[in-house]
């Protein structure tokens, strides 16, 4: 059996993989080619200019998914060609949505090292200057999205645990923010906590969207905006 993408990425990044996988990749033309392609993708990604995704990226996508024209097109497509077209629309829409959510989460959550500590510091300062009011507004928007995503009854164990962990972290941030006076939280500290809260909510939305996609065929309603 060929190596998975995950395995290949591990090989590429010099992370430990099973001896059988490493041996297979060495000897398999197809896997070696895929590995070379992944290395090229990384090189290309490193050449990309530094980019901070718009803070409301998810909202823009959701708005597009909700647009009557798109919904009608998807609806017509679904009826016209049945499962195949519906699956395509759902997959394309959800794939694009989660792709942006994932990339957004990576970019916001990780602040990737650009090789310039000066530019990194500049970005940190810019983030620190984001007013609490804007962070609160984003936080509320993300909470509204979560409220529209019911938890499926059937849960994948690892995903369920990840969701619980994210929620626990948010809860502890909220504990501090709601008792700011008592614990003497400074303005910048509160701002930092709000920023962290938005990041965690962003991640939670990504995981919950993906969970919806994988459980109970609810991806249909996500793709058509009926969430």
């Amino acid at each position, binding site marked *: 059996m060929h190596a998975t993408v995950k395995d290949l990425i591990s090989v590429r990044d010099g992370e430990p993989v099973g001896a059988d996988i490493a041996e297979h990749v060495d000897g398999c033309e197809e896997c070696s080619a895929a590995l070379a392609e992944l290395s090229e993708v990384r090189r290309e990604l490193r050449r990309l200019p530094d980019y901070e995704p718009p803070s409301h990226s998810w909202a823009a996508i959701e708005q597009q998914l909700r647009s009557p024209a798109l919904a009608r097109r998807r609806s017509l497509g679904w009826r016209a060609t049945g499962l195949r077209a519906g699956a395509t629309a759902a997959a394309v829409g959800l794939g*694009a949505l989660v792709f942006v959510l994932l990339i957004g989460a990576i970019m916001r959550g990780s602040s990737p090292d650009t090789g310039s500590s000066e530019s990194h510091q500049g970005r940190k300062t810019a983030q620190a200057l984001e007013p609490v009011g804007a962070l609160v507004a984003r936080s509320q928007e993300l909470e509204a999205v979560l409220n529209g995503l019911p938890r499926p009854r059937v849960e994948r164990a690892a995903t369920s645990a990840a969701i*619980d962990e994210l929620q626990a972290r948010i809860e*502890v941030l909220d504990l*501090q923010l709601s008792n700011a006076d008592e614990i003497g939280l400074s303005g910048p500290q509160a701002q930092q906590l709000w920023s962290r809260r938005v990041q965690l909510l962003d991640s939670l939305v990504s995981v919950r969207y993906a969970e919806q996609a994988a459980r109970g065929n609810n991806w249909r309603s996500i793709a058509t905006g009926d969430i």
Partner: protein
Amino acid sequence: MNMQPSKATSSALMALAIVVTLGMPVDAVLAADAPNPDTATREQLGQKLHEAQERLEQAAQEVAELSMSISDEVGPEVRRFAHQGSRPMLGIGIDMDEKGAAPDGHGVRVTSVSPGGPADAAGIKANDVIVAFAGKPLAAADGKSPQKQLLAGIREAKAAQSVAIEYQRDGKLTKTQIVPKSVAESLADLRMFSMDDMPELPDLGTKHWAGLRPMPFGMRDQGGFGSAELVELSPQLGKYFGVDKGLLVVRAPHDERFKLQDGDVILDIDGRTPSGVSHAFQILSSYRSGETVKLHLMRQQKRVELPVQVPESSSLSPSRLAPPPLPPAPGAPPPTA
């Protein structure tokens, strides 16, 4: 602790996300161009879609975990709460300045609601105005703001005991009950993270998280128990299995070494009754590879004890194990478990 990831890590994740997400529509588009698929083609398409959805779920989860591990800090002052274990909390955020009070001075505006927390469970949302708590109206009086009165009321409440709460949303008054959670329980959840310098928490007694070891990041067992799909049994559903509670295995883990089968009901894990799907995962994750754990199950209405040696999670990969079974046929009703 605030670790910055390497550029390689970020790039790798971006590449993974690209491959995972772009891989899905391409498959579907190709299949959509095929004329009049027969049943086998539909099943293949369904299989591919299911696999893509599973990869997507895993990728989103991995990104979330990376996001959490990059910045482990949970706030500068969280340790102050570690010695107030029984203190109740509602899982809401409020503003202590004038913005946090309703314009007429009656009530406290909710700024944020912790997902999955007590207020969320009670149906409270951001921007709702809490007008009464534990039967006491929240209005400025005796130099105390409504916010201070609410905080005082919360401190007087008892964790796990329901309290009356009234709130307004769009002018409509709702009266309901809320069950505060203890700070200890919340911080105990947090112990599952890599909080090496966390002070010892008060004894949680029979709390469901008690006795678990912190689970470091990177321990996710995607191909092992983590790949299992489970549902909490309702009392009605439990009647079919001869139990009143438990976790029904809708789809067994990819790794057959867990010996679980579709339709099993997990009753307890080494005597610890999982309170939910996540808790079952956390319990199993607290064992080291090679340790033996006894799973108590209902299988075909008979009690079964399965000794399971916890596999080496890093040696598992979903793709190296048997593929998941086919999803329901198109048009079939969603699972009703």
